[in-house]
């Protein structure tokens, strides 16, 4: 039997909202049965992308969705902002790339922590990043 998909959307606007995203991610990951290391990876990845969406994208939403398929269970988190977008996604994915005075580890590093990483961005319209981890 396929269990119901649970979904929750929260607004992210201020830097403190990164902490809220981390708490939600932890709660979902724990509830789904991820082990401590996997939980840590998910929470860290969510923290990175949430901060990007707030600092570079001016805020937006974070949407948590549980994946409950007969053959696959997992957690999907999507971040959508309506900021300036990313001109060159390929370059932005490389370690060391930064425009915001950071270390530029966010995107490439986050991808390594998760099983799936999807990014869509349109200059002037915004960016959406979806990260997925399977049990």
């Amino acid at each position, binding site marked *: 039997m396929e269990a119901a998909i649970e979904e929750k959307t929260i607004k992210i606007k201020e*830097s403190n909202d990164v902490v809220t995203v981390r*708490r939600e991610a932890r709660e979902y990951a724990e509830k789904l049965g991820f082990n401590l290391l996997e939980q*840590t990876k998910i929470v*860290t990845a969510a*923290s990175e992308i949430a901060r990007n969406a707030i600092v570079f994208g001016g805020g937006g939403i974070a949407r948590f969705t549980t994946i409950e398929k007969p053959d696959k269970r997992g957690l999907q988190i999507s971040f959508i902002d309506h900021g300036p977008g990313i001109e060159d996604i390929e370059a932005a994915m490389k370690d060391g790339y930064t425009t915001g005075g950071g*270390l530029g*580890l*966010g995107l490439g*590093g986050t991808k390594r922590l998760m099983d799936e990483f999807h990014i869509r961005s349109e200059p002037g319209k915004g960016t959406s990043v979806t990260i997925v981890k399977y049990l």
Partner: protein
Amino acid sequence: MEHIPILKMGEYLLVSIQVDMHDQLAITLQNDLAEKIAKTGAKGVLIDISALDIVDSFIGRMLGNIASISKVLGAETVLVGMQPAVAITLVELGLSLKGMHTALNVEKGMQLLSRLTGKDQDYTSRKQ
């Protein structure tokens, strides 16, 4: 404004991060520590992060900054108590905290701090 307490013990400053580290709090800690080192002339800083359940690139960068700023002000920094899951995640993320002194726990951290600040030479010479 929220602050993380900084305790003074002899020539060392001790910080134990027990709260969820949001970005502003990390920046505040960096600034508070710099001021405290300058004011007290502390020779060493020990930061216990055993209660932190994640260290992302921003927090990692702040910890690195703290070590660099302390060094410029004449103090060594030792980071202790990182949870194994946090260490694995941090390295996979691409941050290895190169150049930072680390130790497994507070006790080992204090020993390292003594060595780094030349205190244990006094200790051994007293012993001999």
